[in-house]
């Protein structure tokens, strides 16, 4: 992972990185990646994902009303009446 890669990931994640910290992030990011590389050492060819049982975990199609929606609306940074309010999204 190089400098451009870090900038691309930061952009996708909507993160702002100060110029001076790009090097540090690149280094740390590569450390994390190489740690996960260890998983690649295990041969998983022809091995399917582990599941306790090959059966469906499903829910019946029934409506259960959630009663505390005001707490959800209250969790948002901003609201207007019963809407969540966000910065203007330009659509045209």
């Amino acid at each position: 992972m190089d400098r451009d890669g870090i900038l691309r990931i930061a952009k996708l994640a909507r993160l702002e990185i100060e110029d001076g910290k790009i090097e540090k992030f690149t280094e740390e990011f590569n450390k994390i990646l190489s740690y996960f590389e260890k998983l690649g050492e295990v041969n998983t060819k022809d091995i399917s994902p582990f599941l306790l049982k090959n059966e469906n975990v499903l829910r019946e199609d029934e409506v259960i009303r959630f009663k505390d929606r005001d707490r959800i609306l209250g969790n948002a940074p901003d609201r207007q009446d019963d809407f969540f309010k966000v910065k203007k999204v330009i659509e045209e």
Partner: protein
Amino acid sequence: MSDFIPTIGLEVHVQLKTKSKMFCSCSTDFGAAPNTNICPVCTGQPGVLPAKNKRAIELAVRAGLVLNCRIEKYSVFARKNYFYPDLPKAYQISQYELPITRDGFVKLSGKKIGIIRAHLEEDAGKLLHYIGSVPVDGSLVDLNRCGVPLLEIVSYPDIDSPETAFEYLKTLRRLLRYAEISDCDMEKGSLRCDCNVSVRRSVDEPLGVKTEIKNMNSFREVREAIAYEIERQKKVLSDGGKIYQETRLWNGRKGVTVEMRRKEEAADYRYFPEPDLTPIFIDEKIIEEQRKLIPKLPAERKEKLFEMGLSEYQVDVLVEERKLCDYFIAASENSNPKEVANLIITNLLGEMNKKRLDIEEVKLNPLFVGELADLKASGKISAQVVKRIFPQMFEKNIPPSQLLKNLNIVSDEGKLEKLVWEGISENSSAWEDYKMGKEKASGRIIGWVMKKTRGSSDPATVKKILERLKDEKDFDN
């Protein structure tokens, strides 16, 4: 301008007919007050877990069957990551590498349109920029739709004209409605359609650069938008210009497509398997259960209706809605099918329109329509009489025979003949003229009988009786 060949592929999203959302138990009710059908799961609160809706999966299997797809024994959900305020989790749960169904087709009148895949996903929320006509100093988010189950149906680029796209959409909608998979109502957002359009000069060339067009509100608009986009691309290329891969919005008011965003690099959605959900397993039992729930589909019904002697127009109208077609089949079981079709298309649909009713809300017993059709076909009652009694039949669900009795409608030829004799003696000069060969003179006698019966006799029948009487007289002489 040299000739270009258009290539069109459609992505259709339909809302599956479920009561609750795809991964939580919130209602999918259309038109609920803003943010009333929300919960911690569909608003992406920390620590929640999604749970798959059984019915949505069954409906996806049924759709796969109707679309002649292969139903996968094993499929998985995936996360599609992007930031937008209508998507509180910052990812949409969809299917990517392993969709639930793939490789199917829809048969049109002249050709087959291939289906690449039909996969499950959840809808996003809705953004509002105005309240009434007043602009908001930001954007408002309603998450009622967020998490509603959708099936995305992706066609192969097998479509070569706006008309074929239109026919494909109509056929697809009919299939999904017949099998009760989706309401496919564009106005209510339960069907949406994006089109990929490109043109090239010959089939030997590789496909041209495509644009994606969105924001059409009806099938007619889809047809118009595609036609516009084909012409636009042809013109750009003929003038030596270049087509960019971009998303274009249809502006229905102006009848044009407008550039929305240019895709400079392919969008990076960083798909990966959804770790919060187990895979979907579909066995033969589920497939067979769903297969049994599929009624006779439009193509098969069309054939049967043609065999019954109906016109192409009649067949098209009757086959459009399954319940209307069922009604016709029930009404014509022992009755003249052509006449039943006439009554349903003219009178029944007329009354339904007036009262703004759906076929499900019609109380009139289809057998009564059959009875009326036979009375009409045998000439016992006239079109006027049908017109007069149908509204009452419709409203009160009364058999026509009873209404005819109540109205004192004269359909008995013996009774009518007596009246005709009366008419003759009251209009003896007209009778003499008629016998001399003046056809027009019969009108006075027919008019008299009609007046006497207050319009409840059939003029054609009266005329027939009159003719018979004249011939008998000739014979006497």
